[in-house]
């Protein structure tokens, strides 16, 4: 089971946090810090796996990918395959790239809700449900389209008359 997905900057700022097994909010920052310490201590060109049982409990590992200014981290337990998780990170990044056309950190910062949408299409309840980035993109675009349709209605403020009477 995947326990968490984290995206953080190389400075250790969280850009996206999604926990599939509950972690109390006050613990989130400690986890981010712990993971970041592990990541920043790693030299380049070593393996992408870290055994993180000191942070998350026994048997938990994490897979990370360092791309430009971001770390993409997937935390998972022994029921997942490390290499497959690494590819899942790849799927995620590929999807982001398709979505934003040359994704950069700013895209991730400003559209973290979109990242959540993408992740929800990939992973549900800690299990992988979709690994084709085309398929994920299709679903996400479908959602965007439908949201836009209903967007027009929500543009009307609750008390529009009041606004203009001032």
């Amino acid at each position, binding site marked *: 089971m995947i326990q968490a997905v984290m995206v953080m900057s190389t400075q250790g*700022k*969280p850009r996206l*946090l*999604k926990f599939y097994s*509950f972690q109390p*909010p006050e613990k*989130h920052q400690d986890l981010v810090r712990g993971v970041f310490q592990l990541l920043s201590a*790693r*030299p380049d*060109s*070593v*393996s*992408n*796996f*870290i*055994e993180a049982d*000191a942070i998350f409990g026994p048997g938990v590992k994490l897979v990370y990918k360092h791309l430009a200014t971001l770390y993409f981290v997937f935390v998972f337990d022994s*029921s997942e*395959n*490390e*290499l*497959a998780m*690494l*590819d899942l990170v790849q*799927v995620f990044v590929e999807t982001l790239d398709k979505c934003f056309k040359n994704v950069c950190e700013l895209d991730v*910062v*400003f*559209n*973290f*809700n*979109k990242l*959540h*949408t993408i992740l929800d299409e990939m992973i*549900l*309840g800690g*299990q*992988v*449900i*979709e*690994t084709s980035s085309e*398929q994920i993109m299709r*679903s996400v675009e*479908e*959602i*965007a389209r*439908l*949201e*836009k*349709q*209903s*967007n027009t*209605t*929500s*543009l*009307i*403020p*609750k*008390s*529009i008359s009041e*606004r203009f009477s001032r």
Partner: protein
Amino acid sequence: MEQLRTIGRELAMGSQGGWGQSKEFLDLVKSIGEARSKAEEDRIISRELEYLKRRLADPDVPRRKMKELLLRLVYAEMLGHDASFGHIHAVKMTHDESLPLKRTGYLAVALFLDERHDLVILVVNTIQKDLRSDNYLVVCAALTAACRLIGEEAIPAVLPQVVELLAHPKEAVRKKAVMALHRFYQRSPSSVSHLVSNFRKRLCDNDPGVMGATLCPLYDLILEDPNSYKDLVVSFVNILKQVAERRLPTSYDYHQMPAPFIQIKLLKILAVLGSGDKQASGHMYTVLGDIFRKGDTASNIGNAILYECICCISSIFPNPKMLDAAAETTSKFLKSDSHNLKYMGIDALGRLIKINPDIAEEHQLAVIDCLEDPDDTLKRKTFELLYKMTKSTNVEVIVDRMIEYMINITDHHYKTEIASRCVELAEQFAPSNQWFIQTMNKVFEHAGDLVNIRVAHNLMRLIAEGFGEEDEGADSQLRSSAVDSYLRIVGEPKLPSSFLQIICWVLGEYGTADGKYSASYIIGKLYDVAEAHPTDDTVRAYAISAILKIFAFEIALGRKIDMLPECQSLVDELSTSHSTDLQQRAYELQALLGLDKQAVETVMPSDASCEDIEIDRNLSFLNGYVQQAFENGAAPYIPESEREGAISVSSYRAQDQQETSAHVLRFEAYELPKSSLPLAVSQASISTPTTDLVPVPEPSHYKEDNQMSRSQPSGDSLSGEFGVKLRLDGVQKKWGRPTYSSSSTPSSSTSSQQATNGGSSSVVGGSTSSQARESSYGSKRQQGTEVSVEKQRLAASLFGSSAAKADRRGQAGRKTAKESPTEKVATVNATPQPAKEQVIPSAPPPDLLDLGEPVSSRPPSADPFTQLEGLLGPASASPVLPETSASSTSKTADLLSIFSDDVQTGVTSGSTEPSLGVNVVAAKKGPSLQDALQKDATARQVGVTPAGNNPILFKDLLG
């Protein structure tokens, strides 16, 4: 007007792909990014939160704006600030009609809340409603939220709808419904247990995606109870076959691999189902072989599947062909340049050696490389592998390596783990007590506070007991070497508390035993320890007790010893200590100094820590006193059981009295503790049965110490002063003399022989197999390996072939020059003792020779597993064994087939039986040295090392 402009800008932002955020959010992110310090960032966010708080509560805010505000709140919370005031707004937003708002609401709720949160109850109703929605996106959003938010109590509320959705026309919804159900199962298996059959049904879903999703819950279910899913083995194999044969639509391909995640999940499931089940495993071999053949080692995901195949093969009933394929792929992983693949290779190797320990030997250099890799993950994984393959022949190298690594890491968690592993391995495989003590010293010195206190007690006990009953000389030598080493170490700063306790105890008990050090010298050292650790009461208690012992021994020897002034001041200080335990000890010391020689000898006999304490449960020595009391008119003692009523009445009365006079001062004196004296005595006698040692609660040895020392002055038999602390029961005696170590293995008579003659016993196996390899080596020697001699030596010691390659190279020349192996074996048999020293280096099979040759890097041609299958059957074990050795030698070495015959006869010639088969049968009966040797040799051929760490699998084989 201003506001109109804002709306205009919002519209413009909104048109940028529908996700756009307002300028405010942009500014916020920018200013956070530019913040120079954490404090500045915090200030910006608190200001933002203030603003959000105001705006969210403002009814005038347009609904679309609300969405953005909420997202900003999510952002602030992600950065670690409390945004709980907005949770209710998130909940409210889930009620909204419009899809984007609803989705944002669900997103925020899923991030903010968990199933135990109070507000969840408000969401359940919405989820319930949305699950029935016509819009499938709403349903999906609700399912996603349900996965996160529905706890055990709320499951029944949404369960019917989720089950209904399993038949939804949209596959995306079906998929998510399966996952939601899975999640419910994880939360509370009982509440969905009646729906488990749904998973089986969904396995036949038309959509491969839904089928793949179903594998997740099935995997969990199968892990729990594999037996009720055995009927699915054929279906799983079929699905896997179809996937591997690319029968799925190409849209499921990923990097040219057909549905890799489904394959991986299926392989995981098959691994569970086939574990220990020959019949089920039989179905799997074909498809596994196919996957191996088609395996794509170029792509990451292809390797992921291959790795999963190896895991599956190592878990199901072993099949020689499959294992060969797995070993081959593993060696590809290990030879790869990618650290990821090396990591997977090490992991795979760890799985495969459980089945066939020989596989590791082919990869020894790769493993050594990984051990020296800068990648910490890889290093740890390699240590894990070494831990799995430790046996008595390589324990020293492995543990030394582990300790070396342990010293250099700062990660507390991992340090603890590796320290406990060192201890475990040392306890299990230590070649000598001397080594054990040295190793333990190192562990304690660097990680003493991280290991279990039990380990410290074990170490003390080992020093106290030494080699056992006989051979006092070796014992005292061991002790004096321990004393020497501790005297060297004791001055170092920052020693862990538990290590100091050991040092104090050993110095107290044996510091003066061999007469090398004077009592005042030892006392001085002990005083230094106590002085240097003014806050550690346990250490001080140990130190003062040790000083007491030294004094006692000196007095018992009739020597007069003066109290050093600083020592006296220590005792004075301790006798006014806050700790009653320390006080007690200090007073005891003072009391002891006043006693005469005889008394001291009885109170503190020297070297009596292992002696049993005899306990007089009837307290007969008090009889006279009791008699006297009777005569003086005392009431007889009534056992507790018989005076139950009286006690309860009196206690009731006392309570009553207290209640009435609760707020008044009591003027009458407290009652004398009449019944408590006999009570305490009886308790003491209960807790100290007549057998060996006093079983005292383990974790609190500190208290034990108290209890013991408290009873010192009372003068009852105290022969085993500190022995009390060391619990003998339930601790495995694996190290030390071979008689101990053998007890755990099933074939105790022979294996004890093997253990004592570890080196010589493997001679036969070593020389035969090295003969066999000699031929391949001769031809390949020219290829040359650029591997450093250093590494080879390490590899050799790790993997059992204790000779460095260079050594063997020299020997090889001599051997080919007509040194008859028969003679050699004969001499070995005749005089095992000198031969031991001589031949140890070439004992285990030298696998270095096979480097770089994939063909020859396979396991020995005699397949261990074909034999194994036979062995596991009803047929007797022993007759098959000789065939193995014979066939393997002759098959591997055609050139030397004559030699191999010679070897066989050479071996048998020593014994009376002419037939090899009979000979081995005899090995089971007598502990004759030669039989043991031979058995070991055959065992090696079959891939079983006598001290191998998989005794269960080969139990039949070893008898």
